[in-house]
């Protein structure tokens, strides 16, 4: 256990060293936040209460999205490229030889990365957004820890998805294709471009039931106090359900994959 805490701390510290990249990321998130905020304002101006949000809630949604973009790895988990590379080059054999669990190791490192991104790339854009626009903020103090728990569950689901993507490299050798599909699905079905509650009809129902909903839509709804009491329990159950299912799938795939590994001697 102590080992995995150390790995998570390492993940946090490692990303904390990329100061220039973090500053650039904060800048980009803020710029995109502004552009999205104005398009949402035009939309909600025409249709107040679209998707069950008022203007202030829709604007808060935009900035929550920018804060969680890197945290929940919507455009890439931040670790899969490295893992794919290790699988491609065969370095994975060394990892498998170590007395640690492969999935838990990457999960801990990714948790550290997510925690850093929430602080490093989430707080500043959110603060800028709150200063410039009139955002809906939680009325109860208890909403904040409830939101953080939901974010943590979302990060777990995201990890599980990207882990599956990375493992696909065992069969495809080159994970670029799968990664691009996952990136696309993540951006669209997480509700990053438009809240899933705005999606019409069956498309909306399907989108809200997919794992990606737990990365942004569900945490945002917890933040906006759309999910309280029993609804909050259901939200957690939805996220945990996907997390357990996808982590289990990752574990199963991992054991099939490792039996396939052929170590080239040298």
């Amino acid at each position, binding site marked *: 256990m102590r080992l995995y805490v150390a790995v998570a701390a390492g993940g946090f510290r490692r990303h904390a060293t990329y100061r220039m990249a973090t500053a650039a990321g904060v800048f980009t998130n803020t*710029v995109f936040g502004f*552009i999205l905020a104005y398009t949402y304002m035009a939309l909600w101006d025409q249709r107040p209460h679209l998707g069950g949000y008022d203007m202030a809630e829709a604007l808060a949604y935009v900035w929550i999205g920018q804060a969680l973009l890197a945290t929940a790895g919507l455009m890439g988990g931040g670790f899969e490229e490295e893992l794919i590379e290790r699988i491609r080059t065969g370095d994975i054999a060394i990892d498998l030889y170590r007395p640690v669990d492969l999935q838990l190791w990457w999960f801990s490192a990714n948790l550290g990365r997510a925690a850093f991104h929430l602080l490093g790339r989430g707080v500043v854009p959110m603060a800028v957004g709150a200063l410039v626009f009139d955002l809906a903020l939680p009325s109860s103090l208890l909403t904040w820890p409830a939101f953080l728990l939901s974010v943590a569950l979302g990060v777990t689901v995201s990890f599980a998805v990207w882990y599956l993507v990375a493992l696909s490299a065992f069969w495809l050798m080159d994970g670029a294709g799968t990664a691009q599909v996952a990136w696309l699905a993540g951006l669209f079905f997480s509700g990053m471009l438009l809240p899933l509650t705005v999606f019409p009809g069956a498309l909306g129902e399907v989108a809200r039931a997919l794992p990606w909903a737990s990365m942004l839509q569900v945490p945002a709804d917890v933040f906006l106090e759309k999910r309280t009491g029993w609804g909050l329990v259901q939200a957690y159950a939805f996220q945990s359900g996907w997390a357990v299912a996808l982590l289990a799938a990752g574990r199963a795939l991992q054991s099939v994959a490792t039996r396939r590994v052929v170590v080239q001697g040298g």
Partner: protein
Amino acid sequence: MIAAMWIRSTMTYRFSFAMSTFSNFTATIFDFVVIVLMFSQVNGLGGFSFAEVAFLYGTTSTSFGLADLAMGQVNRLGKRVRDGTLDTLLVRPVPVLAQCAADRFALRRLGRITQGLLILIWSLVILDVEWTAVKVALVPLMAVCGALIFSAVMVAGASFQFWAQDASEVTNSFTYGGNTLLQYPPTIFAQDLVRGVVYVVPLAFVNWLPALYVLGRDAPAGVPGWVAFLPPLVAGLCCALAALAWRAGLRSYRSTGS
């Protein structure tokens, strides 16, 4: 020639090439799906109809797609500076910029251009505009000058990475961010923001200013109407500035020596 080499290398795996071009095409179509979804809820956005927004979307996406195909790779420069592989480019008897642009030349980016062009053509079909010879000539001119402006921004951003090696994302906020911005009518944004993309980073010349002329609307942020014909001049100026920035960056480059 380097580009041809990379094309040959990707063509070795034809199926993979077809797959990645197709996914590139679908990836870029998703932000148009978002606009379609928006218009399934409202009739107009900032006083603009669906056809007009589609026209704005088509023009900027075509320009951005062209620029991305030509110069999209230069943002890898920061990585090259960091790991020292830029040195190999310096010793070859070919301009460094040409080598960077052709580095891993990705023909699959044709997917983005195809997507932009299709929506542009579609918007021209459903658009209700009184066409004059000037307006007809302005559309292809817009695509070319827009591509030059986006390319200049990409090169200027890459030059910046000679100093700040990790900051390629800043360029993204001007290129990808600018592309997103220009997909929507200027009327929905704060006027200070619009002034910024007219006078500071002149992205408004990619499509907003000429497109509004084509659509018969007033130019935003109180700029006079004749600026619709300035894109060639602005594009030339941007390219000159980007070239200066590139040379300054290249001259200040010190190898990591590792």
